């Protein structure tokens, strides 16, 4: 037997050091064990579960015993009209949200910034943020109470002054606008937070200098305030475009109704209809996976653009 070389010995010591470090920290690992198992079971196992999209899922055989069918499900979904409609609607609703909804928080933030009475500004913010905490179930319920064609309060009021009912929820175009409107109602105020934060970072001396030069408020807003929050605007715009392909479930599901499903059925609600209600797991998983991949492409593109424009990624 050869005596341990110097290198061997130091390696051994290092290993012992490692072992001691891990043993000494056993309490920390003990604490981490439960949360890490949580993430593995409830987050990573479902990620492997997307394999269902490539299998002819059989309830009795389970995911792993079911037969592989390759890309069959993907070929199938592209022959489903409803899927293509859902895809179109997802992009359409997101695009409208972006075009109509994106500028509003900016305008609100600029106006809030002009308020000089502190207490008024603070109370205004409190009220503006409030709708963000109302659940979509409640918002959907309120929408029915307010906008139903026959019994909705708004239409009852319109009728009473001699105007015909507006089919806010039952006609496609009106429904889309109502959908966008409720989104603005809920989140436009909340959306001002990041802009207001960016506004506090603008150098006050710029305004003082502009005042000396006799600049009007509008000019100051245009030449100082707006450029000050431009980076925030750009990055939020890029992030929003990055999320173009993904849509939440609750808002379209709870705002929608069978009469307008032509425009209200989006990917997330369609996955629910096909997967949960009709139990066609393979197809529904394939749709979800397809959307996730498109979503990832959008996000990575957005991140790439953001790096080009801002020298900074979006995460």
């Amino acid at each position, binding site marked *: 037997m050869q005596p341990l070389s110097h290198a061997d010995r130091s390696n051994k010591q290092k290993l012992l050091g490692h072992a001691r470090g*891990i043993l000494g*920290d056993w*309490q*920390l690992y003990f*604490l*981490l064990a*439960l*949360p*890490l198992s*949580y*993430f593995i*079971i409830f*987050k*990573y*196992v*479902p*990620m*492997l*579960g*997307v394999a*269902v999209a490539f299998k002819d899922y059989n309830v009795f055989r389970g995911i792993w015993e079911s037969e592989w069918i390759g890309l069959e499900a993907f070929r199938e979904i592209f022959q489903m009209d409803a899927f293509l409609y859902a895809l179109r609607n997802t992009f359409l609703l997101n695009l409208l949200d972006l075009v109509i909804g994106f500028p509003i928080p900016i305008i*609100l933030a600029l106006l*809030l910034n*002009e308020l*000089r009475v502190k207490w*008024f500004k603070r*109370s*205004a913010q*409190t009220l*503006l*943020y*409030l709708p963000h*905490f109302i*659940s*979509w*179930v*409640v918002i*959907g*319920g*309120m929408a*029915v*109470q307010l906008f139903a064609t026959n019994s909705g*309060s708004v239409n009852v*009021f319109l009728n009473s002054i001699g105007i015909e009912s507006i089919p806010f929820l039952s006609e496609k175009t009106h429904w889309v606008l109502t959908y966008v409107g409720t989104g603005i109602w809920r989140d436009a*105020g909340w959306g001002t*937070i*990041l802009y207001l*934060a960016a506004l506090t970072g603008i150098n006050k001396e710029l305004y003082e200098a502009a005042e000396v030069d006799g600049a009007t408020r509008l000019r100051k807003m245009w030449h100082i305030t707006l450029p000050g929050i431009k980076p925030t605007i750009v990055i939020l715009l890029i992030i929003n475009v990055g999320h173009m392909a993904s849509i939440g*479930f*609750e808002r379209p599901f*709870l705002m929608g109704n069978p009469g307008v499903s032509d425009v209200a059925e989006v990917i997330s609600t369609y*996955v629910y209809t096909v*997967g*949960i209600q009709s139990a066609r*797991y393979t197809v529904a*998983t394939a749709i*979800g*996976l397809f959307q*996730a991949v498109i979503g990832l492409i959008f996000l990575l593109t957005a991140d790439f653009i953001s790096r080009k424009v801002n020298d900074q990624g979006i*995460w």
Partner: protein
Amino acid sequence: MSHAANSKWVDACIIAFISVICLLCLLPMIHLLALSFSSNGAIMAGKVSLYPIGFNLTAYKSVFAHAAMVRSLFFSIFLVCLFTAVAMFMTIIAAYPLTKSKLRGRNFFLFLIVLTMFFSGGIIPDYLLMRELHLLDKIWVLVLPGAISAFYLLILKTFFSSIPVELEESARMDGASYFRILWSIMLPLSLPSLATLSLFYAVGRWNGFQDALIYITSQELYPIQLKLYALVISGQANDLSIMEAQNAGAPVPQSLKAASIMFGTVPILLVYPFIQRYFISGAMIGAVKG
């Protein structure tokens, strides 16, 4: 001179405009509140706008007489407490070890956790997992899958890291275990942020709907939001009509629906003033990447 006068005028306009927007935020809720206290006749005639006409409490009495609704309400309260307790426990025991930069594997664990903020299996794989675990239609399905929010975990970790290390080091010198440090130093020092995170979790659970819709089928396990959905939106108000037939002069569904919606909202409105500013700082942390 005219400059200053002009500016005042602009100020007034902005204040007026913002006031109108604020009113728009509140009006739907005020209107619903008014409806819930109004008489049938007034609602049918379209007389109710922002204050009750023919004030009465019949709608609320009916909600309380509606066994399934009351059960959902109590179930939701119980669920929110259970969920918040589990979620806080899990988040605390995850956040504390991850503040230790010398902990081996820490970066890998953090990576594992952050990755889940961007990727998920999706609705169906989640559903199939719940089925394999025999969690479908059990209360735990509304507790466990959302037990740790990676985002809140990072917030709490940041907060724990801001507690001066000297406190912990001197406790280590005295031979205190990590468990003890967490329990007697870290937690007492972070009570405000623990309270805030609890409210985050509680509000999220109270408002949560999607998981209940997908995983829950028994009426006894309907959280309030799912019950509201069944009552107000999907029009499955069958059991309601029976109730109406029983009570002569029962309110039209309008006021009853409005009253039910109030039950879904009021708890949020009650805690909102206290947590508003924490939510704002939370939104900032989210923006300034974790």
